[in-house]
Structures are given as structure tokens and as C-alpha cells.
């Protein structure tokens, strides 16, 4: 154990827990037991509690002062291992950072799954995968596809197994209206069904929202579709051999479309028609 970690260990940790998500073992601890419920609500989708204290990664939350006390205010600080990763006067911000940090760690380290930043819905037994970074309009398009009758799989990650099949990552959709963090809405609250099993990819739709743009996509080859997925793959540089194998398998039964789009509702119908 290094000195920083040892010093961090000396703090008064009031509560902690271990969990496994997608084969990654993670521990979380906090200096205030009352925040554990909020931490639990933010753990990566599919997490299971873990009794064994041995973990691959330890994240820590030092809870500061919730209100100003005189001139001094202790900040809320998130540690990734021994590294101070984030601090804020707002507990909510620290919790959101912790959530994001744990999710990205699992996405990067999951040994048998490849995480691609993408929205995913199912239509007639095959998946429509919409790779894209934040604010590219993934969630809007997923929402429009759900409204058109598709089944929800994810608005954040396409989780691919060794055969290139997509598994559900059923976290609530994060719909951004004015708040950048977004409000969370479950698929059920939107009147949509959520997927259960794995599916082959049917369509890779690479698109970005541009006000007023018309959807005139060009067809992507198998190799180009694979590159589109690779551009948004979390462990692309860490496990390139496995990534290439899995993405090739995912894109093999699929076809790809790429283009700018206008309003999501206008494109959703075209995508579902293309899957017929």
C-alpha cells in the first residue's frame, strides 16, 4: 500500500460496501454513513453486492460540510484509489461525479464485455445501435424510437459480448431539458418496454443532430461500421485485439448508415423502416 493510500486509510470511514458489475470488483466507502443509500442508487447497472473485501478498485467519498460554518467550509472530495479526482461544495455534484467515475471504470475494465458509448433499442429481434458521444442526440433518438414502439436497451452503452451481441444496460434515460445533468426517466414511465436478453446488431446508425438538417444517410460498409463503433469504444486502447474481434462480430450481421439529422421523430420512422 503506498503512503497516500495509507494516509487516506486513516480517515474515519463510517461505511463501505463492495460490489461486482460486469465482472469488475469495486469497493466504495464514505466518511458519512447517511450517504450510502444515495451511493447505492448510483452504482453501475447490473451491480451485485460482494461480501469478499478483495476488490480491483476502491473509490472513496469524503463528505464535507453541507452548510457553511463560519469562514471555512470543508469540501466534498472523491478519491479514485489514492488520487483526488474531484471536489465540490455541492454533495450532489460529488455524488454525480462518483457515479460517472464508477460507471466509466466498469466500462473500461469489464473483462468479458466491450462497452461502446451508444444508445440501443430493439426492433423485431435485432438491435439498432446509435454510437455517439454526449450531446450528439443519442437519448433524443432513443426516446423517439421508443415512442415509435421500439424496446429499450440503453441510452448510454452498447454492452457487447464476445459474439458481438448486445446486452441491455437498463439505467433510466437521462433526458436533458435545461439541466445539463438531466432528469432521469425509466422506460416504463415513458410507456416503453425494456429488453431482457442479448440481441444481434441489425443497424449501426451514426448520426449527429443539427438543427434543420435533412436525414440523407450514406450506407456504411462492414469495415466502416466497425470503425464507427470503435470511435466510441471505451477500452479501445486498452484491449484493441479483443475490441477489434468483438466489433467485427457485432457489425458483421448489421448494416450501417451515417448522416446528419434534424428532429429525432422524423428519423426514427426511417430507421425502423430500414430494419424491415
Amino acid at each position, binding site marked *: 500500500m503506498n503512503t497516500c493510500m495509507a494516509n487516506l486509510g486513516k480517515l474515519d470511514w463510517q461505511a463501505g460496501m463492495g460490489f461486482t458489475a460486469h465482472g469488475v470488483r469495486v469497493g466504495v466507502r464514505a466518511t458519512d454513513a447517511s450517504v450510502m443509500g444515495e451511493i447505492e442508487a448510483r452504482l453501475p447497472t447490473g451491480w451485485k453486492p460482494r461480501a469478499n473485501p478483495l476488490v480491483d478498485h476502491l473509490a472513496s467519498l469524503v463528505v464535507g460540510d453541507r452548510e457553511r460554518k463560519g469562514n471555512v467550509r470543508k469540501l466534498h472530495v472523491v478519491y479514485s484509489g489514492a488520487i483526488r479526482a474531484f471536489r465540490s461544495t455541492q454533495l450532489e455534484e460529488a455524488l454525480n461525479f462518483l457515479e460517472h467515475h464508477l460507471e466509466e471504470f466498469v466500462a473500461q475494465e469489464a473483462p468479458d464485455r466491450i462497452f461502446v458509448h451508444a444508445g440501443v433499442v430493439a426492433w423485431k429481434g435485432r438491435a439498432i445501435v446509435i454510437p455517439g458521444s454526449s450531446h450528439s442526440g443519442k437519448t433524443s433518438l432513443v426516446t423517439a424510437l421508443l415512442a415509435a414502439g421500439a424496446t429499450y436497451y440503453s441510452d448510454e452503452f452498447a454492452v457487447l459480448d464476445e459474439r458481438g451481441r448486445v446486452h441491455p444496460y437498463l439505467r433510466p434515460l437521462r433526458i436533458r431539458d435545461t439541466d445539463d445533468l438531466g432528469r432521469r426517466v425509466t422506460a416504463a414511465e415513458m410507456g416503453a418496454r425494456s429488453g431482457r436478453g442479448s440481441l444481434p446488431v441489425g443497424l449501426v446508425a451514426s448520426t449527429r443532430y443539427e438543427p434543420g438538417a435533412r436525414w440523407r444517410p450514406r450506407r456504411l460498409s462492414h*469495415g466502416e461500421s466497425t470503425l464507427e463503433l470503435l470511435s466510441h469504444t471505451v477500452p479501445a486502447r486498452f484491449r484493441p*485485439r479483443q475490441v477489434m474481434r468483438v466489433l467485427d462480430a457485432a457489425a458483421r450481421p448489421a448494416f450501417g448508415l451515417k448522416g446528419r439529422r434534424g428532429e429525432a421523430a422524423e428519423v426514427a420512422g426511417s430507421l425502423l423502416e430500414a430494419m424491415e
Partner: protein
Amino acid sequence: MKRKAESAMKTAASRAGGAVRPRARRARLIVRRLPEETLVYDLDTSRAHCLGPVAAAVWRHCDGRSSAERIATVVRKETGAEVGEAAVMVAVDRLSEAKLLSAPLPPAGRSRREWLKQAAMITGLTVVSITAPLSVEAATCVANCATRPNTPAGNCGAIPCCPPATGRCCRQGSGQNCGCRTSGSCTA
């Protein structure tokens, strides 16, 4: 007049192409052959390339001994495409730019433009390249970059900034404050 120009062009291309005996790079590459294309991941540059069928066939036959003319003959037989020396030189040029040859090509001057003109109708010569993302680049974006603390690595996390801000959340100057940098990397 037109025939004379064509003949001169062919001679120039032949002279330049004949001197080139490209050798494909094999080390530190992950190669996956798809039914029509070939995917190559470069472990040195973290770049991935998708080679069209003709470009892939040319790359496979760059053995350091065969001339462009010889490669054209083999690729023509293999792919059935009307591949001439000019098409091979275009492919070799693109492969060289993608750093998929063991040595860079010597400067070819005007003839390279002529090859492009001559090979304009040949499909399958494409070499599409992307840079594999860092996990933070594939990650979601950071709002309010300016309120983030600097990280021990000194780069404020280097996570993309959320719109309406653009760029990446980087350390500002030599201080400890973070801000969105729109060009260059966080370490620059």
C-alpha cells in the same frame, strides 16, 4: 495530341512507379480480414484503418521486391478489378500516409496527381482512418469545467467539455485552474 499526352503520362507514371518497390509494415499491427475489406489497428499510433478491397490486396502484395506493375498484375487477377500501375501507386501512397509501409515513399512530385486522375474510376482504393479514443474521450462530457479541481496528472481530467462549451477540460496555463481548451491536447 491527346494520344501523345496520354502516352507521356503513362511513361511518367511507369518511370516513377517502376522505381517503387514498397514493403508493407507487419510489426505491431492487428489485422482482421473481413469478407471484402481489411481492418488494421496500429499499436504504435493507436489508429485504426479500414482498407478497401483493392487497397488491401495491394498492401498484402507489397513485399519489397515487386514493382507497382507486378503488384497491379497480381491484384488484377485476385480482385477482378481493372487495376493498373496508377491505381497501385494511389493505394501505395495512401498506405504510406497511414504509416502501413515499412519505409515512407520517396517524393513523387507531379506524377502522384496524374495517378489519382488515372485511377479515379477504380473503387476499393479507400483507406479510412480514425484514431482510437482514450477512455475519457469515449466518455461523457464534463459540465462546468472551470469548477473542477486540477488532477495530480495536471490535466484537469482531459474530459471533453459539454456544449455549449467546446474543447477539452484542461489546466489553464501554469496555474491550478481548469478551463475548456478548444485546440491541441491538454499536455501541449
